């Protein structure tokens, strides 16, 4: 972790690095975790992202951003990519890219949407869909260093089948409270009917504003707009709400 906080030469930080796929994990019907080996990877903070660059044989190239899903772990980094049916990049990453193949990657990028283990205030994580990815890096980092900071997670997802990291989140993490919200269909006998996140979800599953938690909100633009707006309305100070918007609203 220390590596990420020491200032690094810019030329080094911005270099495109070859990243070789070493493992592919099926998370859901449409999401895959891709583990890359990145020689020279300098380490990262939980919440940061990378830029991925793909180049076709005719030289055409395009880039997308993906959050780092893993806690810092040497030269290995994990991304979790949700396939968008009409997407240019995500279907390639989830379906085409095979173990041993190369992409280019640079980073880590972003110094704002991060959780540092030095932070002592309670933490609220609010994720919609693939917006869970950088929040999971925070949960994994907390676990990796046996940090005791109280965390609460609110995870909104379409249906149980779309849930990421299900088995891992089922494990007990002392001091991490989890609340799942389903927008289309719920598990059987689920007390809360399906629906989008509400103020009452955020006050029941979150922290009272006077605990002064830092809130991390991540997901599609629509989700982030709604959830961050509700947190402000509940009395959370806008300066303590950090957001990461993944893209257009669904």
């Amino acid at each position, binding site marked *: 972790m220390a590596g990420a906080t020491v200032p690094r030469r*810019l030329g080094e930080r911005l270099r495109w690095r070859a990243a070789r796929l070493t493992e592919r994990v099926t998370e859901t019907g449409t999401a895959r975790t891709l583990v890359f080996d990145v020689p020279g990877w300098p380490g990262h903070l939980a919440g940061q992202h990378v830029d991925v660059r793909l180049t076709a044989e005719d030289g055409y190239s395009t880039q997308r951003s993906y959050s780092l899903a893993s806690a810092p772990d040497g030269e290995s980094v994990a991304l979790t990519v949700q396939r968008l049916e009409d997407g240019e990049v995500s279907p390639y990453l989830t379906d085409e890219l095979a173990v041993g193949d190369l992409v280019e990657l640079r980073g880590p990028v972003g110094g704002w949407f991060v959780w540092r283990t030095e932070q002592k205030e309670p933490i609220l994580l609010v994720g919609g869909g693939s917006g869970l990815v950088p929040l999971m890096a925070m949960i994994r980092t907390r676990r990796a260093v046996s940090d005791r900071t109280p965390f609460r997670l609110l995870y909104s997802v379409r249906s149980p089948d779309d849930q990421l990291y299900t088995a891992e989140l089922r494990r007990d993490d002392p001091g991490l409270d989890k609340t799942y919200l389903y927008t289309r269909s719920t598990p059987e006998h689920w007390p809360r009917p399906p629906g989008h996140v509400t103020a009452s979800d955020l006050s029941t599953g979150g922290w009272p504003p006077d605990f002064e938690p830092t809130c991390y909100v991540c997901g599609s633009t629509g989700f982030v707009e709604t959830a961050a707006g509700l947190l402000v309305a509940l009395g959370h100070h806008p300066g303590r709400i950090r957001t990461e918007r993944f893209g257009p609203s669904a």
Partner: protein
Amino acid sequence: MPIISRGFHGRARDPRHRLPPGQYETNGFPVLSTGPTPAVHLDQWEFTIRTETGARHSWDWTQFLALPDETPTVDLHCVTKWSKFDTDWQGVSLDVLLEDVETNADYALVRSYGDYTTNMPLEDLVDGQAWIAYRYDGEELDPEHGGPARLLIPHLYFWKSAKWVRGIQLLMEEERGFWETYGYHDYGDPWREQRYQGD
């Protein structure tokens, strides 16, 4: 030499060559912000230009709407990789707002409600390159997209087009804004892919 990704073809190329390197075209209008959308009330809204000597020039909402407006149609390029072509805006040119301002400054720091800031050279705000926009696509500007008014400076990456704008500080020396402090580029030219400091 970039590494070829086996089996990657990409979408059909844009024949108009309007796409800066690394970008892709979207028809949606994605949003990039650092926190919640601030509520800005029109009766309290004010736009202020402050010079290096401390002189102030300010307009309230009524005065602002009374200024001559323009309706630029421009392409937008966001550092998060999307580009959007032919967007229609209405707003006041910075040439109008800066016309009577006496200054020796070379740099600008743009300030927003909600405390966002971003920096650029002052020369990039003049000569028909930048507007304070209050309508998008024929409608009042949504708060989510920066309403009531935002800076529109389409020749730079879109984070420079500060949402919920409330003023511009003119400076003799460059001061970094919000994203620039976190390592994003001081200038941000999409055609030279100036995403991060050092690019």
